[in-house]
């Protein structure tokens, strides 16, 4: 237990996080660069079409992963919000700040791909039903968190307000998840569950699974990269940042180098 805490504590140090994320970044980026194209090409050209929907089913391979991330990214943000409020950990605030735009982009993709898929399948781009409306609310929640960071004057109060918003807003995630069961909706129920075998053949669900893993890797890579960028500015008083990024290192400043 003690070692777990020590491990957790290490991750809260910006310097340690920066170094750690640096060794993870090439792997996450590489995986995303391999998995996403493989899933897209497989889904577009090799997977069989749906017997009812035909080739419009291929939208599934970007709709499913983006919809999954639209929910889970906010879940991560809520966990970070809790960590930030309870332990006052700066990195948790930074995570929320950089994850929000990614979440907004991926939720927009889920909405757009869903609307486009809805047209040939349901005959309409949009209906105000539970699943679609709650996902739209999720998109606005992401925009709200982004707005908090750009509107608040100090980083600390922005972090606190954003953390609270994430903790309150996370109630929308189970609403999205169970909306297809609680209300009558045009949207089909969950395609996959952890406990049951998928109802479609492997050559159809395997590319979707690869796409989901690829999207998570992309999220990890972008998040680590943007968190590093935030750390560079916020830790500008630390010697390690300065030595690394100050291209015009001035020796007059030597007084600080002990």
């Amino acid at each position, binding site marked *: 237990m003690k070692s777990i805490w020590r491990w957790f504590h290490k991750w809260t140090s910006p310097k340690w996080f920066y170094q750690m994320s640096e060794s993870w970044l090439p792997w996450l980026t590489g995986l995303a660069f391999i998995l996403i194209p493989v899933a897209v090409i497989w889904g577009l050209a090799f997977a069989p079409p749906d017997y009812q929907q035909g080739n419009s089913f291929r939208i599934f391979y970007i709709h499913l992963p983006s919809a999954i991330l639209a929910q889970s990214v906010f879940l991560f943000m809520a966990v970070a919000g809790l960590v930030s409020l309870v332990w006052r950990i700066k990195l948790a605030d930074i995570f929320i700040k950089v994850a929000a735009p990614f979440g907004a982009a991926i939720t927009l993709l889920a909405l757009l*791909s869903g609307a486009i898929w809805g047209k040939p399948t349901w005959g309409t781009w949009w209906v105000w039903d539970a699943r679609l409306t709650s996902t739209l609310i999720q998109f606005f929640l992401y925009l709200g968190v982004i707005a908090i960071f750009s509107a608040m004057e100090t980083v600390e109060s922005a972090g606190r307000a954003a953390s609270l918003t994430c903790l309150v807003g996370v109630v929308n995630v189970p609403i999205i998840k169970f909306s297809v069961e609680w209300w009558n909706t045009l949207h089909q129920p969950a395609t996959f569950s952890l406990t049951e075998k998928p109802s479609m053949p492997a050559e159809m669900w395997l590319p979707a699974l690869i796409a989901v893993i690829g999207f998570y890797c992309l999220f990890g890579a972008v998040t680590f990269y943007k968190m590093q*960028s935030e750390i560079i500015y916020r830790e*500008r008083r630390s010697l390690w940042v300065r030595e690394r990024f*100050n*291209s015009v290192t001035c020796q*007059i400043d030597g007084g600080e180098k002990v």
Partner: protein
Amino acid sequence: MYFDSFSEFLSMGNHALYVWMSYGFFVLILIWIWVDARVNRRANIKKAQRVWARETTDKLSNKDPATTPEERSE
């Protein structure tokens, strides 16, 4: 390969508009994510370097390290 020819692949069984439009949005959003991350990195480094440069000139002219409004707010 599911399709018999490349033109069949492009036409997506009369669903070309829907399939290619959604994948088009996908590519646009990926590009935005990439550009945003790069611009953000450069902006943060520039911001930090401006602070360092100012501190150095202040030290040279024996002034108190000046702080800008944006710095004071942190």
